[in-house]
């Protein structure tokens, strides 16, 4: 066995978990630093017939990085930027090892971009998420919009037989492999396409006293959407109250003043040139006032630094929910929805996520993308009994989603958690694709056996 394959003793127990709060088990772990060491280690593991769980930043909330036996291949030390190249239109191709974090990617892009910054639209909200993990789950952050483009140009894939393949946009296989959560093999390089930031970026946060006027605002915004609207995120009253309660202990939130209202909020970003952004902002102001907001309830910032400050509120959602689960008894995994309801309105979905848990006295924070009605409900059970009721509720919601032709798992991944929780209710197209691609590339199911299938 390779001497880089380490027994998983007490020093490495932190690698048995991810943000799903599931805890797994494994016999060994390794930290390859390049493709050659990945190949060497996989060869040794193949000789021993050992299954492998691939790990990046352990920021996933579906348990995809939680091993259930076998070996953990942790790619966090494969974090180099290998190359950055620029097109005449200001687009960048950033080729990196899979363990590069979102924060490191930003820093690398900033170091070379000069005055006109670039960004990666799918960037997940967690800045410690890795490039490889984002590609494996097709993660989507708040800047991803509603389009299907992945902004991944190519990748190198090592399959269970030790073969190395380069997959490129347009070859058909890349699109099949992305989002299959590590089942076909190990990404050893990923090339991302970064696009120029808009010349002018404004962040606007509209706070509401009550749910109804907020829904009215969302309806009017969806009907009369400015072209410059790049981000539209919902944050419910529970999330705002949770943020208020944690304000003094979270660095992210300390820089924000008191919320002018806590019945719910809508966070928007306008991207464009100065004139068009200001015209769009005028429109947003008009819609917010017509929805009953006072001036003091509508925050607005401009410029990248200030927009980052306001984004922190939305980005803090995952961390706030995580803190709740930290206080629960061990073994209770995080319960989060990643469902779509294509036949209903924002109001219907948000109301369901608010009312159903309330009937059972279970806490719940709701946030997420407004424009495609892809909201996230993070359930906050207090104990094992409530956790069980919450699981039942998740399954009922999944049934409703499927009946409307919706997706019951998306960019958070299926992992092992959703596989268990939503058995029989998972998106069939994704399951089929994962089976097909895995059968083609790694038929012995060497990788991430406890996830997805």
């Amino acid at each position, binding site marked *: 066995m390779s001497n880089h394959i380490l027994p998983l003793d007490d020093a490495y127990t932190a690698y048995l978990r991810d943000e799903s709060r599931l805890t797994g088990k494994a016999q060994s772990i390794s930290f390859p630093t390049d493709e050659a060491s990945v190949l060497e280690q996989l060869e040794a593991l193949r000789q021993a017939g050992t299954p492998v769980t691939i790990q990046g930043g352990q920021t996933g909330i579906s348990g995809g990085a939680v091993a259930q036996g076998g070996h953990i291949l942790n790619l966090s030390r494969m974090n180099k930027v290998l190359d950055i190249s620029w097109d005449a239109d200001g687009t960048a191709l950033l080729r990196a090892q899979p363990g590069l974090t979102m924060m490191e990617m930003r820093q690398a892009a900033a170091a070379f971009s000069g005055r006109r910054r670039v960004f990666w639209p799918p960037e997940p909200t967690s800045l410690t998420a890795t490039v490889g993990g984002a590609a494996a789950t097709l993660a989507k952050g708040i800047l991803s919009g509603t389009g299907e483009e992945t902004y991944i140009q190519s990748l190198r894939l090592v399959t269970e037989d030790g073969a190395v393949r380069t997959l490129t946009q347009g070859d058909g296989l890349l699109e099949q492999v992305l989002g299959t959560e590590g089942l076909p093999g190990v990404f050893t390089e990923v090339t991302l396409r970064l696009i120029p930031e808009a010349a002018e970026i404004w962040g606007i946060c509209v706070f509401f006293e009550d749910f109804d006027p907020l829904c009215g605002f969302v309806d009017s915004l969806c009907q009369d959407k400015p072209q410059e609207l790049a981000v539209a995120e919902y944050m419910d009253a529970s999330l705002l109250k949770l943020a208020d309660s944690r304000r003094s202990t979270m660095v992210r939130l300390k820089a924000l003043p008191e919320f002018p209202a806590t019945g719910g909020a809508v966070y928007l970003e306008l991207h464009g040139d100065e004139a068009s952004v200001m015209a769009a902002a005028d429109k947003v102001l008009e819609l917010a006032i017509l929805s009953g907001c006072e001036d003091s309830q509508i925050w607005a910032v401009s*410029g990248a630094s200030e927009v980052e400050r306001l984004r922190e509120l939305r980005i803090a959602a995952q961390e706030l929910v995580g803190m709740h689960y930290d206080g629960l008894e061990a073994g209770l995994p995080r319960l989060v929805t990643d469902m779509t309801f294509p036949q209903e309105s924002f109001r219907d979905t948000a109301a369901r996520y608010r009312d159903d848990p309330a009937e059972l006295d279970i806490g719940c924070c709701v946030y997420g993308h407004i424009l495609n009605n892809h909201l996230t409900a993070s359930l906050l059970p207090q104990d094992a009994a409530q956790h069980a009721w919450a699981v039942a509720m998740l399954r009922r919601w999944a049934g409703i989603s499927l009946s409307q032709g919706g997706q019951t798992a998306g960019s958070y991944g299926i992992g092992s958690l959703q596989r268990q929780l939503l058995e029989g209710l998972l998106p069939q197209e994704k399951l089929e694709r994962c089976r097909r691609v895995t059968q083609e590339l790694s038929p012995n199911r060497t990788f991430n056996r406890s996830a997805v299938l």
Partner: protein
Amino acid sequence: MDILVCVKQVPSVSEGRLDRKTGTLLRADLPAVLNPYDGRALEMALRLRDQVGGTVRVLTMGPPSAVAVLREAVAMGADSAVLVSDAGFAGADAMATAYTLSQAIRTLPQPQLIVCGRQSTDGDTGQVSGALAAFLNLPFASGVDTVTPAEGDELLLEQRMGRIRVTARYPLPCVISAENETVVPRIPSLRLRLSAAKAQVTQRKLEDFQDTDPSRYGTAGSATRVVRTYRPPETVGKAILSESEVTGQALLDLILGKEALPNV
């Protein structure tokens, strides 16, 4: 009460990189922002105005692009803005900056209170506010944590002086340097931000000043010049003391050099 707040545009330090050879901040291409200390000073002034009435005017010395921080300040609620800009002001050190500001302020209706931030995140001297007060021949209070209107033409100020807090009455007009780490500057309303984008900004150049001698301004008027900014070299010898070894006497002996540094 008529309040004037001096603000500065600074590079967004959180995104900055250091030149490895010189240790200086690589400013080119960094977004420019309102100096965070001035943001807190402005918030203090706005709260005072909201409490007692009056106006808040903001003033900045810088290149034409510095108008952006004035618009930011107006978006936060300042009533008017002044840009002090002239090619002859470039390269000014703290003293020349303070003199320039004092000359500009003398061309405006006299404020009752002038508020400055504790320091800037790029220059870091913390000297401009005190020098400004001297040039204007006004009382100066540093480290001001809270401001409360008092009877007559006075303010009750709470100041931080290290671990000591001082409460004192200051006559108006005066200059204060704000130091309240807990103040969170307000985020502008969308309406104010939109109107700030079109706000008129008063300009002041050298020719507007009482003293138009160019040798008093910019590099020529500076008593100091920054030769190099660098990270100090790391200490070669280090003492590592366990909790059980740490006593006041042991630390004192180490600091006074009575004990040799252990080999580590």
